[in-house]
């Protein structure tokens, strides 16, 4: 190993350490930004050292340099533009897209290695097996993430798309990529084997994500993130690059943890989500205000009085709030109440929003200080002392039916909103949540239903409170 190569390997080791330290610093909002910068610094050093090594070897042709520079410029500009301009509500789509391209790039590395095999006998199983897995996993992530992004963006129906015989198709595809990987191991230079594997992976990504409903997106995005990490680690095996293996393994682990957390928060097994069927997407059935006689409809003025004379208020934001882009309005209302001496915090369910922790980002964007965002386990014991729980665009995560067996949300951890002294729900209509279930909370005598769009309704309440206390 040349001196330069040794230095480059050491720099890459330092970069891997930076990734770990960066992730470690993410465990507090105070240090998280620095953590990301540490990780970024490690990445820059690793990339730069690789460029120097390639230049020193002299193996890169002029065309190669031009291709690399052009690719970096085009991709980098597109990524930077998207990162700068994306709305925080659209964050899950963007993360999915980055996931897709990362997985795609990882798969292409293995494709390149396989089509350039000169003597198949010299390719060890560790290379052919990991190359095959890289192509399958990378392919699944590429199309799967694109479909997920399309669903989140509303380009593809958010409802589960189930076609007859889909299970048979999935089974055949699974068989196809098993055969493909086996074939690649048998003959690493075989083009048909490569094509079969790639096609099966790409097709499986589509058929895997299409039947999954919009409500399950936090799980799907986490899972695809884990897949990309694994694909990158496999590419590391193929190219014998330690830093790729470490980085890929770290991301794979993070994706796996988040997937489990999300699935637990919905009390659903990952398998049942993959099989699909439950998340019926955004199905707000428009029934007019007061369509159900057993609920108590209230006006903005009623809500304003309740809030202004409360001691402690908990705001429970759900996806409806994000969909209505009402995060600024809710922060404004909270600000007015706090000025008036009301204690206001937010209760965040783990699956509120469209990806893990999404609601926290939306509220951070609206300048809500993070100490006011309470996790479920922290806030639940406090609900009996809460004067008003204000539920905005959240449904299933507040449904007390989850405590009873025998319904789709049974066993799902919920926010104990019904234990608060009084409840106000802002909702467009009596439409059901993803689970397609009536929410007992709404017919509770202590619950007032304020039928309005989240954004307009909150603004309405804010001005009512202002005129009351101002």
């Amino acid at each position, binding site marked *: 190993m040349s001196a330069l190569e040794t230095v480059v390997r050491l720099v890459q080791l330092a*970069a891997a350490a930076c990734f770990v330290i960066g992730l470690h610093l993410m465990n507090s909002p105070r240090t998280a930004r620095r953590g990301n910068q540490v990780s970024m610094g490690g990445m820059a050093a690793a990339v730069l050292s690789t460029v120097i090594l390639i230049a020193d070897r002299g193996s890169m042709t002029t065309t190669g340099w031009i291709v690399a520079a052009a690719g970096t410029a085009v991709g980098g500009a597109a990524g930077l533009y998207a990162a700068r301009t994306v709305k925080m509500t659209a964050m899950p789509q963007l993360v999915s897209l980055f996931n897709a391209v990362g997985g795609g790039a990882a798969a292409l590395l293995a494709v390149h290695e396989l089509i350039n095999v000169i003597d198949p006998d010299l390719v060890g199983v560790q290379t052919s097996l990991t190359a095959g897995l890289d192509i399958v996993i990378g392919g699944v992530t590429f199309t799967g993430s694109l479909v997920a992004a399309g669903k989140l963006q509303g380009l593809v129906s958010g409802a589960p798309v189930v076609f007859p015989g889909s299970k048979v198709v999935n089974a055949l595809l699974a068989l196809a990529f098993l055969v493909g990987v086996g074939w690649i191991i048998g003959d690493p230079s075989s083009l048909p084997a490569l094509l079969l594997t790639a096609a099966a992976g790409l097709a499986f990504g589509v058929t895997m994500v299409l039947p999954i409903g919009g409500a399950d997106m936090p799980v799907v995005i986490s899972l695809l993130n884990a897949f990309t990490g694994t694909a990158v680690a496999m590419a590391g095996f193929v190219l014998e690059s330690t830093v790729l293996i470490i980085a890929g393994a770290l991301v794979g682990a993070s994706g796996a943890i988040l997937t489990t957390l999300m699935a637990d928060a919905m009390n659903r097994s990952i398998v049942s989500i993959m099989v699909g069927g439950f998340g019926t997407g955004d199905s707000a059935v428009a029934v007019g205000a007061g369509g159900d006689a057993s609920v108590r409809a209230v006006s903005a003025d009623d809500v304003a009085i309740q809030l202004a004379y409360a001691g402690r208020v908990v705001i429970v934001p759900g996806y409806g709030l994000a969909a209505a882009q009402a995060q600024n309005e809710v922060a404004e209302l909270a600000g007015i109440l706090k000025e008036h001496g009301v204690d206001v915090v937010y209760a965040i369910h783990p699956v509120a929003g469209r990806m893990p922790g999404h609601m926290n980002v939306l509220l951070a964007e609206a*300048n809500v*200080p993070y100490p006011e965002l309470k996790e479920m386990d922290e806030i639940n014991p406090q609900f009996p002392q809460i004067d008003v729980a204000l539920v905005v665009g959240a449904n299933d995560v507040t449904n007390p039916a989850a405590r009873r067996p025998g319904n789709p949300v049974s066993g799902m951890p919920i926010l104990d909103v019904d234990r608060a002294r009084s409840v106000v729900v802002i909702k467009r209509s009596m439409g059901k949540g993803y689970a397609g279930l009536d929410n007992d909370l709404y017919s509770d005598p202590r619950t007032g239903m304020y039928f309005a769009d989240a954004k307009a309704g909150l603004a309405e309440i804010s001005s009512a409170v202002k005129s009351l206390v101002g």
Partner: protein
Amino acid sequence: MSADLLFDLTTFVLAVLVGFEVISKVPATLHTPLMSGANSIHGVVIIGALLITSSAHGVFDYILAFVATAFAAANVIGGYAVTDRMLEMFKAKAAPPAPGRDDQTGDRG
């Protein structure tokens, strides 16, 4: 099993365990930036993309290398930028009041 493969496997398994250990301590508040940050880390695949570009010959190889570099660059540059943008918003205190209201002396002394 070759020594190289054994070494790579060891690295892989230990890195997975480190990942579990480090990430399971991240609070739910930061899960979106965490995922987006992890996402940028797998942008390290750009190193692989550069390596295949350096050994490319022929038009198809270069096309492959171009697509891989572009994909990886979008992943790594966009990923870090958007994570930073998100984390910048996380503040422990509400944004300071508008200028001209700094006569409040609440935290003095």
